[in-house]
């Protein structure tokens, strides 16, 4: 059964078709990668799949519930989490607090309880803090718990975003270029992290430029070009697809290899 289903999805900006009539399903398991040359519409697609953009046409189902046109927080409540290519960290908070915000959906947020700080809320806060610490540890940032997020290095912030997204306990996690700007060691750490996510049973959608990374971890690959689906299938079949080689791998693969 598919976890996320997209039908005839399109998005245009003032006449420019960033995403055009896309149709695909993301199965409820494993790593699903979306690749394509620069400007292929990958990030636009991710914004559509999380409600950040409203589609110009088409429909989106998550777990057989239609979410088309809903606000991002509805997507989050349904179980979709994501990270951002251009970091969206809450720089006015510590690393730990960033992750604690991620647990928002699972906290009681009553105003009166908060203002009067009921004992039950204080207990819940302790639990929240403990879980956030665990998640920081899971992504390898245990040492940064108390750090102000604006003092952390770039690579750590990328993982902080993953921890924050995980805190919402998503069933589908979309990672927008998690390895962009990272050195080879850091990239390896991200790869291992993605593998551990899969082991946790979280379906992961990976938007990535780094072909080696994609081909290594993906169960399924969707190739975009000019906002359209160019090819789809297993990493192996996509790699051999002549259309893909021509449009994307032809130039880029050599550059990356």
């Amino acid at each position, binding site marked *: 059964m598919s976890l996320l289903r997209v039908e005839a999805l399109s998005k245009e*900006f003032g006449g420019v078709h960033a995403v055009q009539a896309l149709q695909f399903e993301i199965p409820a398991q494993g790593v699903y990668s979306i690749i394509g040359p620069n400007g292929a519409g990958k*990030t636009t697609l991710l*914004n559509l799949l999380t409600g*950040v*953009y409203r589609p110009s046409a088409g429909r989106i189902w998550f777990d057989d519930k239609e979410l088309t046109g809903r606000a991002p927080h509805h997507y989050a409540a349904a179980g979709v989490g994501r990270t*951002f*290519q*251009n970091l*969206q960290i809450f720089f006015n908070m510590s690393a730990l607090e960033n992750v604690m915000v991620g647990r928002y959906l699972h906290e009681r947020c009553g105003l009166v309880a908060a203002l009067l700080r009921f004992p039950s809320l204080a207990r819940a806060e302790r639990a929240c803090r403990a879980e956030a610490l665990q998640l920081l540890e899971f992504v390898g940032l245990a040492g940064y718990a108390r750090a102000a997020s604006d003092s952390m290095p770039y690579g750590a912030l990328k993982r902080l975003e993953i921890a924050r997204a995980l805190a919402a306990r998503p069933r589908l996690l979309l990672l927008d270029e998690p390895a962009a700007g990272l050195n080879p060691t850091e990239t390896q750490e991200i790869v291992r992290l993605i593998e551990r996510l899969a082991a946790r049973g979280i379906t992961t959608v990976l938007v990535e430029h780094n072909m080696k990374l994609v081909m290594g971890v993906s169960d399924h690959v969707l190739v975009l070009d000019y906002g359209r689906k160019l090819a789809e299938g297993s990493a192996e079949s996509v790699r051999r697809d002549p259309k893909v080689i021509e449009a994307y791998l032809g130039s880029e693969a050599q550059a990356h290899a």
Partner: protein
Amino acid sequence: MSPQLLQYLLSGLTVGAIYALVALGFSIIYNASNVINFAQGEFVMIGGMTTVSLIAAGLPLALAALLAIAATTLVGLALEKLAVERVRSESVVTLIIITIGASILLRGLASLVWDKNLHALPAFSGERPIALGGATIVPQSLWVVGVTLVVVAALWWFFNRTLHGKAMLATSHNRLAAQLVGISVRRVLLVSFGLSAALGALAGILIAPITFTAWDVGVMLGLKGFAAAVLGGLGSGPGAVIGGLALGLLEALSAGYVSSAYKDVIAFGIMLAVLVLMPGGLLGRRSVERV
């Protein structure tokens, strides 16, 4: 058209033209720096009050007006050089508070340099009303509307046809890119404050014969100018003009047909409604958030 309606439209157009000038001042500075300059109204006041003083000192009107505009421009340049340029914070609120501080400071200075009384400026070409289709219009209104038209045309030419103007527009669209092609952003900022101050002063001189001027007229004119700029869409030149005229007409019509006490309530109420329906103002840029 009934003479009464025409009368309201004429007075709305006059006030609206002044709002448009003030709104243009807001938009020019906003484009250059993302700052809402709450001292814009004080430029209007300084322009009017300086002219009053210079005329009292025996200068002819045209010379007094020119000197007043020059003096106000200097105040605008000083505000940019001494305060705005020194701010290292990017926070919008911080900059707002600084310009509010400047407006209080300038108002305080005005009450010291001059006094706290109302002052009148003689009309540029007499007070005899001109009959027009059953309504009447004072010659000063023609001055207001005429000069505003000339200024708007001149600004259009400046921003679309001259290198300096294009450089300023480019900076408002993309500061970094403008810097990369060699535009001095600091200079653009300075020019924008000078230009806005000059526009404000001009508005203050034009309106003074109709409404009087005083040390604190800048508060309300500044508010209306800001409202007009937002209504039209912040940063848009045509938007500022349309916003100003719309606000002026709204006020005049509500004062005429509903209640003069509630004219501002109606004008601001409609402005709120427009903002709720069109969150970027009438001609605002539709921007898509990039993440």
